[in-house]
């Protein structure tokens, strides 16, 4: 059963940036496992090193210490099983939306007709039909996000790394994106790691919420989210169970905040 496997394993992972003579330790001694088809949300203060952690999982950065295992094997170079979505929509501005979404297939060498067919289908799924021949500058922020999601899903990555992908969207659009994400996750069964600042977002989507300490990032607190699936993103936040989980994490964050304020006051 692949779902029992630890798909991603971080073993006392650390990352330090060396710049001139000063060292900046960004990630410190993180040990975590992510099961296949799990949905994990990471929260933590701004600049604490969450994005660096994702970059390491994607294989874009090399860890300074510790190991990352993917399906039991150490990651060497970029992990092409990863779909990465950041706050910035990294669409290529000189390509139409259709060609942007079809890009992963183009790279894989899929013939034009086939890749366009598949791209059209996935664009339909994210409700972007009719925008195939537009350029990204002609689309709204939400549409670009959906195009990114479509592009990421098209090459069927086994892991989705989502780095505050919905932070810049308005509340309604964000919920629409949440629903879309959960629907697609149920269909394609990826392993998702979502970085967010929004505790409600974290609890309503994920199986597990991990709270990081201020920089250097280390695991400060973990909480399982055992809410039933499938979840109604709009309604789940009003249930008793949700409130309990939310409040537990919130209490922890409050304590951390109070402690930080004390250290800053000194």
């Amino acid at each position, binding site marked *: 059963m692949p779902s029992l496997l630890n798909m991603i394993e971080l073993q006392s992972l650390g990352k330090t940036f060396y710049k001139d003579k000063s060292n900046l330790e960004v990630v410190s001694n993180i040990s975590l496992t992510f099961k296949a088809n799990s949905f994990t949300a990471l929260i933590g203060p701004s600049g604490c090193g969450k994005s660096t952690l994702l970059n390491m999982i*994607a294989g*874009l950065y090399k860890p300074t210490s510790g190991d990352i295992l993917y399906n039991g094997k150490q990651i060497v170079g*970029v*992990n*092409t099983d*990863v*779909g*990465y979505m*950041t706050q*910035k929509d*990294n669409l*290529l*501005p*000189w*390509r139409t939306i259709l060609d942007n979404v079809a*890009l*992963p297939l*183009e*790279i*894989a060498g899929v013939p034009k007709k086939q890749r366009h067919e598949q791209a059209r289908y996935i664009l339909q799924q994210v409700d972007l039909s009719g925008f195939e021949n537009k*350029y990204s*500058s*002609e689309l709204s922020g939400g549409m670009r996000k959906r195009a990114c999601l479509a592009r990421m899903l098209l*090459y069927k990555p086994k892991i989705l790394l989502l780095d505050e992908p919905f932070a810049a969207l308005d509340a309604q659009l964000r919920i629409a994106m949440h629903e879309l994400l959960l629907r697609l996750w149920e269909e394609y069964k990826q392993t998702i790691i979502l970085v967010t600042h929004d505790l409600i977002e974290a609890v309503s989507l994920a199986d597990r919420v991990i709270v990081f300490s201020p920089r250097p990032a280390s695991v400060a607190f973990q909480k399982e989210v055992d809410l039933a699936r499938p979840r109604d993103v709009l309604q789940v936040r009003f249930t008793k169970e949700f409130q309990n989980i939310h409040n537990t994490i919130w209490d922890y964050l409050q304590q951390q905040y109070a402690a930080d304020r004390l250290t800053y006051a000194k």
Partner: protein
Amino acid sequence: MPNKKITKNLKNFPGHADLNHYFMFILQIVVGLLVLLLWELGSGTIVDSFLISEPSSIFKRLYGWIATKSIWIHIWATLYSTIIGFFIGTIAGVIAGICLALSPFFSRLLNPFIWALNASPKVALAPLFILWFGLGIESKIALAAVLVVFLVFVSTYAGVKQVDPDLVDTVKLMGASKFQILTKVILPDATPWIYVGIQSAIPYALIGTIIGEMIASNRGLGYLVQRSGSEFDTAGVFASLIVISLIGVVLNQVFALIQARSQKWKLISR
């Protein structure tokens, strides 16, 4: 950005843009004619016509060259060296720019040498090139190319350096090879920068050729300038300069047309 929008809105105002356009065009013709008129009247009265000739004799000379068809061999010679030199310089500049921008080691290693070469007056290489490549067309091509190559190199280098590393990472995660990263991300993203270099290099290709022809040649517009000057034929010098300028304008327009076609997305985003 907001400023751009305002001017765009102003231009959309009915009739405004057209009126402005035609008015400016007429004004430009009026200014041109006025200068020619002053020149014509001033020549022989205020300034010795031996020194500045006059528009009427210049146009007579031009007409004579065209009527006897003697001008074409010169235009062809200049155009040929300019275009070949331009292409060689552009290709070399683009390749060097990409290679160095992608190789931090070599760009650091070669940096002082490149800037030293760039700062040296490349026109001063003309005597050397004549020595190396002979009196024929090759030395003119070399001079045109060497003027072009640095301009294109610098802008290509800058263009490749400004490529968004996030875009590169994005396609890397899709499993793109190095060649695919180059052709699908780096080159398209650097294209507007490369175009700026190429466009600014066009007149320099022409200048390189003309200088080469002036120093040692038996044909070409530079040779024509040189010969007319040595014969104290001021009208001939001016007539040659007019032809050179016209070639410069035409080459620039041709390039602008190519550029506009290949950058449709840029026009849309405006």
